[in-house]
Each structure stands twice: as C-alpha cells, then as structure tokens.
C-alpha cells in the first residue's frame, strides 16, 4: 500500500524534501570534513581495535591457553562472541531483504546501514572461529580443495564445516547484496564529485552505471533475487549455527528447538543492534527526517514480539527437559537457573524477556532514550544467552568427575572488546566513504508526487488517456 494512498500513516520522510535535497542531505555528511564527534568515536573504536589486535596477536603467538578454557569447557567467549556477532549480522539482511520482499518502504531509511552492519558483524563473527582454532594458520584445511594428501577431503558431516560454508556464503552474499545496492549511489556520488580521488574511486566502483532504465529493470530483478536468496540464507545461517549445538550430544545443546530459537534470537539481537546504531546515527548524522519516530516505533514493536518469542523458547526448553525424563537434560536446566552460573542465566532472562515488555507502552516506544536503553539491554541479554547456552551446558555434563569452572582471562575480554572496536571502526569509516542511506531507494520510496496534482489533467489533451496513466503510476508503487 502506498503511503500516498494511506493518509493515516505518517510520511516516511519528513521535512518536505526534493530529490536533489535527498541527494544532498545524504551525500553532504560524507563530503564534509569529519566532525569532532566522529573523530572521538573513531579514536575510541580504533583504540579498542588496537587492544583486540594486540590480544589476538598474543594469543596466536602464545597459544589458546591464554584464554580461560579448559578440558571441559572447550568453548567460552570465542564461540559466544561468534554467535553473538552472527546474530547481530542477521538483522541487517533481514531488514534489508525481508522487508524488501514485503515491500516495506520504511526499510529504505535503514537498509544501507543495516547491510553494512551485517557485513561488519559477520566479519567480527568470522574472526572468532578462525582465532579459536588451535592452529589458525591451517584454517584453510576446512576447505575442500584438491591436495597431495590422497586427496584427503573434509568432513561434510561436521556442523562446523557447515558453518564454514554458511558463514562464508553469508559474508559473500551480504557483501554482494550491499555492493549491488550501492552501485547507483556510487554513481550519484561520482556525478556530484569534483575530479579527484573520490571521483576516480567511485567511477571505478560504480562500474560505469548510467541510470539506464534497461539496466534499472534488470537491476531490480537481480536485487529482488538477491533479497529472495538472502532471506532463506539468513535463516539457514543461524539454523546451521544452532546445529553446532543441536547436533551434538551435550545436554543443553542437544535439542530440536534450537534452529527456530536461534533464528528468533538472531533477529531479536539484530533488531536491537540496528536500533542502537540507528538512534546514534540519527543523532550524530542529523538524519531525523529519514529515520523517523514511526520507524523507531515499528522496530520497537518487532523487537517486543521477538522478545516474547525468545522468552517462549526459554520456557519451552525447561518444559522439554522436564517432560523428556532425561535426568541429564533436567539437570542442565536446573543447573542453569540455580547453579554456579545462574547469574548469567537471570541476566539473560531479565534483559531479553522482562525488560522488553515495557515496549507494550506506546509512550515507551516513542521515548528515544528508553528505546535506546532497552535495545542496549537486549544486546547484553542476547550475549548472555549465548554464554549461557555454551558455557553452562559444557561445564557440567555427563560425568561429575570432569565438571569444571570457566573464568575468562584478560586476553579473552580484550579480544571481545577488540571485536567491538573492529565493528565500530569499520562502521565509522563506512559512514565517511559511502552513502549511509540508500539514496536511490529513498528517492524511489519517497513517493514524491508532482505538485500541483491538477497539472495532470492537461495531459488529457495529448494522446494519453489520463486514467491509464494514473492507474499505471499508482500501481507499481503500491500493492504489486
């Protein structure tokens, strides 16, 4: 339904913009010199990144022993962070692709940064399985390439190998999706720029885009295909990530509920991250006209519903454990809630289930500070969810003799901080070098109609039947 046809809905873009206003508004922030705020943010992120790089370097040189893992808890911060970042990475694609397929026009305000976020989050995520390997330098052995060892292939039965394919496919497809979306905008930037570096780079990267309708026509097809591919991909990736646990034998991991549970969690955490970033970007980059309260409210509602789904999953896990009659399973869940790591469990429940219930109130949804706070808490809670799933299941499994504790070391924490550093550094650089909002899509979705509308009547005198024109113009922008 077109916004033009639905006057009750508030407009997606406020502030009475023309097409070139949109171009200017979006391009100017990246053409200006960076603000002090940007620099401050950048320095903080870069410092965090440096800390992370140092920690990873030390770990690679010295050994995984610099992490707090042990013979019982083989995964801790590493895979927690991995799943956390993958989860965040999912919202980007979901917002971009799923909302595209559902013709939700408000996505245009956020899809570019959401996609970039996906890309950077998946980068951060991908680093963890790499560095968590005892011999990172042999990571390429997980690829089935012809070799002189027989050839010795890989184990396609291992969920970790599925992960390799899922994560790399996801990274590549996200990157392509993002880049394809960026091409017309790069052309716009190119044509705005003075001769110089920016122009040279954008003209290479825009691949000679000239705005031809024929190209646009194919482009739209491919974009829709990519969106169509990315949607099941998102589901498959987190399904596969969940299978790392679900296909194992460890009580607390071995459960069929994990794929939908993980996907819901991923969307949840992703939405929270997008909200967090959008609220910052909106403020910092003065995009109040593009990221409106309506957007925020809709995202909040989505987050609320995801929070409820996740909460339902938590409950279901307990029900299934109790109902299964499997003492190991029952123990793991009781141990989660009441054992030595119950703090993590209750943090998770509070942040992910209890706090989001505030979003039932419209006043909360429309209060930016509150929404921001809730989004941050959901991020925290979702990190703890992964921690709870991984560590509390591992630390006390079948044989009591091998029960163990897990305390992260400074190196692990520094690595985690570093992943945030990487994410924000990349994001801040992205804001400086590429249009943070999809210009062409905003223009297309803005529904800028000709004023005054009566002018169209004049056209009747020409060879065109007015009714046809009106119908044909309205339709594609609307329901179809």
């Amino acid at each position, binding site marked *: 339904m077109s916004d033009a046809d639905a006057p009750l809905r508030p407009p997606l873009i406020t502030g009475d913009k023309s097409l070139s206003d949109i171009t200017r508004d979006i391009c100017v922030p990246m053409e200006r010199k960076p603000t002090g705020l940007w620099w401050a943010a950048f320095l903080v992120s870069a410092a965090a990144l440096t800390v992370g790089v140092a920690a990873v370097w030390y770990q690679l040189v010295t050994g995984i022993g610099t992490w707090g893992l042990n013979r019982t808890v083989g995964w801790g911060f590493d895979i927690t962070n991995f799943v956390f970042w993958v989860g965040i990475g999912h919202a980007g694609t979901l917002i971009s692709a799923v909302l595209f397929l559902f013709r939700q026009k408000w996505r245009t305000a956020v899809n570019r940064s959401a996609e970039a976020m996906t890309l950077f989050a998946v980068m951060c995520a991908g680093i963890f399985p790499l560095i968590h390997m005892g011999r990172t330098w042999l990571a390429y052995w997980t690829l089935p390439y012809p070799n002189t060892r027989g050839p010795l292939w890989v184990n396609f*039965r291992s969920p970790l190998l599925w992960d390799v394919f899922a994560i790399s496919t996801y990274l590549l497809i996200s990157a392509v999706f993002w880049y394809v979306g960026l091409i017309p905008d790069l052309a716009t930037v190119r044509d705005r720029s003075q001769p110089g570096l920016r122009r040279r780079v954008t003209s290479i990267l825009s691949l000679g885009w000239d705005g031809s*309708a024929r190209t646009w026509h194919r482009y739209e097809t491919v974009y829709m295909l990519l969106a169509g591919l990315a949607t099941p991909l998102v589901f*498959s990736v987190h399904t596969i990530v969940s299978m790392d646990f679900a296909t194992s034998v460890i009580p607390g991991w071995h459960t069929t509920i994990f794929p939908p549970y993980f996907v819901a969690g991923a969307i949840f955490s992703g939405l929270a991250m997008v909200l967090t970033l959008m609220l910052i970007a909106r403020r910092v980059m003065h995009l109040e006209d593009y990221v409106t309260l309506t957007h925020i409210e809709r995202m909040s509602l989505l987050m609320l519903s995801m929070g409820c789904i996740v909460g339902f999953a938590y409950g279901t896990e307990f029900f299934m454990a109790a109902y299964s009659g499997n003492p190991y399973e029952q123990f793991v869940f009781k141990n989660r809630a009441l054992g030595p790591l119950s703090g993590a469990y209750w943090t998770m429940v509070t942040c992910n289930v209890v706090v989001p219930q505030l979003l039932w109130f419209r006043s909360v949804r429309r209060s930016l500070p509150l929404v921001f706070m809730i989004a941050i808490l959901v991020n925290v809670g979702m990190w703890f969810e992964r921690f709870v799933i991984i560590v509390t299941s591992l630390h006390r499994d079948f044989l009591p003799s091998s029960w163990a504790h897990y305390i992260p070391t400074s190196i692990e924490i520094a690595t985690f901080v570093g992943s945030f550093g990487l994410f924000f550094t990349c994001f801040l650089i992205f804001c400086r070098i590429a249009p943070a909002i999809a210009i062409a899509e905003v223009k297309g979705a803005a529904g*800028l109609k000709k004023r005054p509308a009566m002018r169209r009547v004049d056209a009747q005198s020409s060879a*065109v039947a007015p009714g046809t024109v009106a119908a044909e113009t309205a339709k594609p922008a609307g329901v179809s």
Partner: protein
Amino acid sequence: MSHRLLLATFEHEDDLIGATTAARRTGLRIVDVFTPYAVHGLERAMGLRPSRLTWVCFVCGMTGALGMLWFEHWTASISWPVNVGGKPWNSLPSDIPVAFEAAVLLAGFGSVFALFGVSRLFPGKTARTVAPRTTDDRFVLVIDETDAAFDADRVREMLEGFDVVETEERVITDRTWFRQRRLSS
C-alpha cells in the same frame, strides 16, 4: 552509423512515465530512459519484457545444489570413504546444509555477474550518462529521431504536455551503446 536522438528531461517520475507511455503509444521508438532511481511502472511504460535473469539464478542455484550434493557424496563415499562416527556412507541429511549454501552462493553470484555481463557493467567502464543530473534528480527520455514515426512537432507538443524541462537533440555514434539498446549500429 550514427543516430539522431531526442533527449527530453523531466523533473518528476509521473511526467516521465506519462511521456514514455505516450511516446510508445504514438509508435515512437524509445531508445532508453535515464532515471536516478528505479521508477516503478517504467518498464511497463517502455514495454520491456520481464528479465530472464531469474532463469540464470535458477540454473546457477540448481547447479550449486546438485553439484555440491554430488561432490559431498563423492568425497565421503567414493574418493576416500572414511568411517566417521559410525555414520553410513550415504549421509544425505548432513549433506543438505552445505548444498543449500552452495546453491545460494552460486545463484547469487551467478545472477549478479549475469547482470554485470548483460548490462555491460565492469570496473573501469566510463559512464556515459546522457546528462549529469540523471543520477541526481533528472529523468531523461531518449527518443530515436531517425525513426520513421518521429514527428518533431507532435513529439515536442506531447512532451510539453508532461512538463518537459528541457529537450535536446544529439547525435550519438557509440556502437556499443546502440547494441545494448538494441539499435542497429
């Protein structure tokens, strides 16, 4: 061979679509339209057929899925069968995730590269924008003046009915440019 073209510039997509539809109705040969964003309905106005890139995507996806399934089966039970956890040689269910990923990867890349190929998009290509603002806020309709149905006055009148901002006649000789737009070169 060169073509003599008429470039009509608009400010609004409504006008553009109106003008394009009108031009096509009158039998004019629409060489191309240049827009800053994907204008919905334009393809219908221009009479463009649905893109066949969907087929490319489908074929690539199927190739990826079937190829990967075969490869997984071949490596696990023909090339070097290894007993992994007592699982049967043919572990089809565990082959599905990777096959799916391969399908998506190949389909995605296949269709994007097909798009680049068909639309002649490649790094280093010099963009031949007909007007600098077509990537900002201008819509340009390009009509073949060489065409037999072209009547300069009627066309101009029609365009003005759609609030044309500017019209310009231009001779273009780039053969590639023609070929892409299915003009004889």
